[in-house]
């Protein structure tokens, strides 16, 4: 193989694939993507609930989410030539108690202050928008421009189009270390001993990014966390909205295919001590807890059959939002990691802006609140 490139991207997830696609589209000829596992989109990119959500976001991330919804998602199926199943029919975040509603109201106010169209709705309006919800739901926040998409086809769509544009993809390609050349991060040392070199290296490898950045003296305080989803068999079409709840009991939606995808946890999952490379199963209590949570909000689904569950990993940072951009102390290196389990919805915009960052262009939105240096400032 050719050992040099203009850009090396570490991580074949949606951020890596989208960045590669936009770079190639911008005319960069020589791009390598390295994926440690056998499959593109092996990690959180494929293992998420498919939310394309702005409401409830941290204000530092919200501009990216709004940018993604306004500029990328509506035309993405056409752009990629795959059906991303993007559905913009709103996100209902439900509450069953007054305490829930107070919590939702705070989130709503924060987002409205940032210019997002999101509002509180009462019981009557909740049931007018979605008649399948439980009578116990007394109110909700509603963001009409939120929605959902299919993470599987979207991730692979970016991959296939990038491949078509000549991006070189390697799977089973695990990166062990980064190395500097004359003060620039330029080299990538692979598990099999091979050394690759590029002008710019984008690190978008989920939680694995941490160990890799450690090799050039960077550290982002983060941990990986297990999250679980279940999938039902195909059901008649019921509702198009993305659901969530104040209590964070569960979230999910009905896919275009007809199956429902719901995410929920029982509690012990985040403390499970598993080698995520080897096994990735949920806790034995997750299935039951998820079912009870879902039935509590969408009672009609009690007879829906669950055909599968899955587990994914979230790369969670200490302040709950991702790290984007060029750390000052490591020229040549760009970070895009720590998406905290909600990176799918923003991925098209993030990929686009990572390409901009690499090309030295001004990014669509200001990414400075998400810069690497913030962690030192937090501690200092």
């Amino acid at each position: 193989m050719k050992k040099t490139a203009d850009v090396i991207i570490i991580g074949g997830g949606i951020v890596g694939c989208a960045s590669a696609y936009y770079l190639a589209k911008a005319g960069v000829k020589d791009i390598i993507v390295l994926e440690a596992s056998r499959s593109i989109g092996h990690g959180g990119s494929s293992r998420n609930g498919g939310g394309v959500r702005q409401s409830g976001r941290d204000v530092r991330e919200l501009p990216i989410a709004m940018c993604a919804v306004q500029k990328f998602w509506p035309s993405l199926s056409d752009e990629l030539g795959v059906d991303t199943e993007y559905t913009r029919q709103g996100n209902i975040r439900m509450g069953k108690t007054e305490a829930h509603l107070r919590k939702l109201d705070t989130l709503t106010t924060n987002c409205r202050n940032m210019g997002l169209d999101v509002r509180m709705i009462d019981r009557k309006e909740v049931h007018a928008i979605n008649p399948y919800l439980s009578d116990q739901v007394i109110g909700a926040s509603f963001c009409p421009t939120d929605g959902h998409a299919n993470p599987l086809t979207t991730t692979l769509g970016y991959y296939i189009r990038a491949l078509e544009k000549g991006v070189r993809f390697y799977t089973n390609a695990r990166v062990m270390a980064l190395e500097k050349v004359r003060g620039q991060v330029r080299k990538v040392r692979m598990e099999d001993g091979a050394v690759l070199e590029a002008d710019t290296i984008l690190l978008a490898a989920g939680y694995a990014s941490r160990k890799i950045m450690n090799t050039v003296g960077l550290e982002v305080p983060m941990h990986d966390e297990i999250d679980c989803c279940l999938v039902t068999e195909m059901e008649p079409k019921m509702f198009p909205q993305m659901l969530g709840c104040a209590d964070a009991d569960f979230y999910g939606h009905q896919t275009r295919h007809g199956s429902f995808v719901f995410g929920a946890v029982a509690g012990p999952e985040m403390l499970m001590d598993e080698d995520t490379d080897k096994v990735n199963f949920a806790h034995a209590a997750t299935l039951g807890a998820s079912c009870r949570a879902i039935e509590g909000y969408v009672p009609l689904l009690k007879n829906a059959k669950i055909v599968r569950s899955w587990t994914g990993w979230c790369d969670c940072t200490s302040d709950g939002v991702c790290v984007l951009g060029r750390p000052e102390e490591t020229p040549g290196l760009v970070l895009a990691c720590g998406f905290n389990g909600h990176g799918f919805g923003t991925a098209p915009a993030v990929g686009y802006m990572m390409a901009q960052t690499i090309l030295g262009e001004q990014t669509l939105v200001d990414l400075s609140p998400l810069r690497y240096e913030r962690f030192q400032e937090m501690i200092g």
Partner: protein
Amino acid sequence: MKIERKEFIVVGAGPAGLSAAIEAARSGVSVTVFDENARPGGQLFKQIHKFFGSKEHMAKIRGFRIGEELLREAEEKGVEVVLNATVIGLYREKEIQVQIGTEVHHYKADAILIATGASENMVNFRGWTLPGVIGAGAAQTMMNLYHVKPGNRILMLGSGNVGLVVSYQLMQAGCEVVALVDAAPRIGGYGVHASKVARCGVPFYLSHTIKEAEGTDCVRGVTIAQIDAKYQFIPGTEKHFDVDTICVAVGLSPMTQLLKMDGVEMADTRGGYIPACDETGATSIPGIFAAGDVAGIEEASSAMIEGRMSGEAVAAYLGYASADEKALREKELEESLGALRQGMFAPKNRGKKLEKTDEGIELSEMLLEKGYIGDDEIKRFPGYRAEIKVHPVLECTQNIPCNPCQTACRKDCISIGDNITSLPISVKDSTCIDCGMCVASCSGQAIFLVSENPEKGTGEVTIPYEFLPLPEVGEKGYGLSRSGQRICDATVRRVRTSKAYDGTALVTIEVPIGYTDRARFYRKADEAQ
């Protein structure tokens, strides 16, 4: 959430699971078996034919009776068997989720054995999703468990033992089997199983496969065609059959989901995609075992021994048996399993083209390609001998691990010797008393009693008969050849049934002299062929 603690949980009450439960319970382990079916026994209760092997393998006993015996033994040893209990998940720390009725229960155990068996493979041909295309195992379940006839006119795809045995059972249930088809150039299952189907007149089409299942709402017909060495259809070789059912018997896949979801290391082998485990079924996770088809596709007889080995290993793992006891029992079971894994169909011979028997006799090509031995070919095997007075003819021409005929005969007319896979010899100058025990004891229905009466110009052939209604004495019909063709007139002279024959009737037909070496089945005159 409540988690109930058990000592040893077995998933699957089939031959492997029950055997393991019995063996472990024998050492004092407290055992709970879960099975998703309403009845225990797994595949055993679908097996109405007699099993192969030796006495220790419960040879010549019908499968469902072995199941009954296992259940009785399990009950006697205090094994708890929970039915209608579907294990839906296997988790860390040996925890399982079991759906029972409309609830899910959580259990943990110190050891868990996965004995979930296998599911049927499918092949894709045009029309394969039409109602009427079913697995051969499914057909067997319909017939033998639920007493439902799967169809009227049936084509069987697959000539392994499952395809052969089920074809025969379909005919027993009153279905017409129009053809037995296999893409391979040679029959995959035992020659004796093939022969009992062939002599009923079922044609075999080797190097053929299904081109299309016809019909819009359900199967109305099927077209098969010959294929070349690259599995491409040869134009002009198409043959059409009017059928309402197509049975598919193209192998089994281990149902390893529970093992895989727990992170057990797997291996891609000729026996399927199975857990990497040692001879006792111990997997890469301590305390998790696998036995039976889920650990590699084999016969039920092997599954039972594997189960016993796992049960013994679990007893030792849980401190109920000493290492010495374990080693001793393991050796005994290994020898027993080793005996079953000998011969032409041994796992080590899978995919090999054998030319000769262990005795150095050239195998019958016709048997391998058409399902029956040539009238002249049979004469080169030791089971054949020409004699006027009554004597057994043993049409057993492949080295398979089976020997009940040897002990069935009290007069030493049949000899196999110590090697269970040797071909049976019809012993010269021995005195056959026409008791028929050998005929009924042969799981392959390959033994016939033959005599001649030169003065009368006739001869008699006694055949094993497992169809209802039984022929009546004095009834006139036809003698059928090994390929199921009418070759002579025949008169039924005797019909013997006996508890000792265990469901196999012995029908003695009188045929013209010269046909005693060729007539191998009987059909009543007014019955359509």
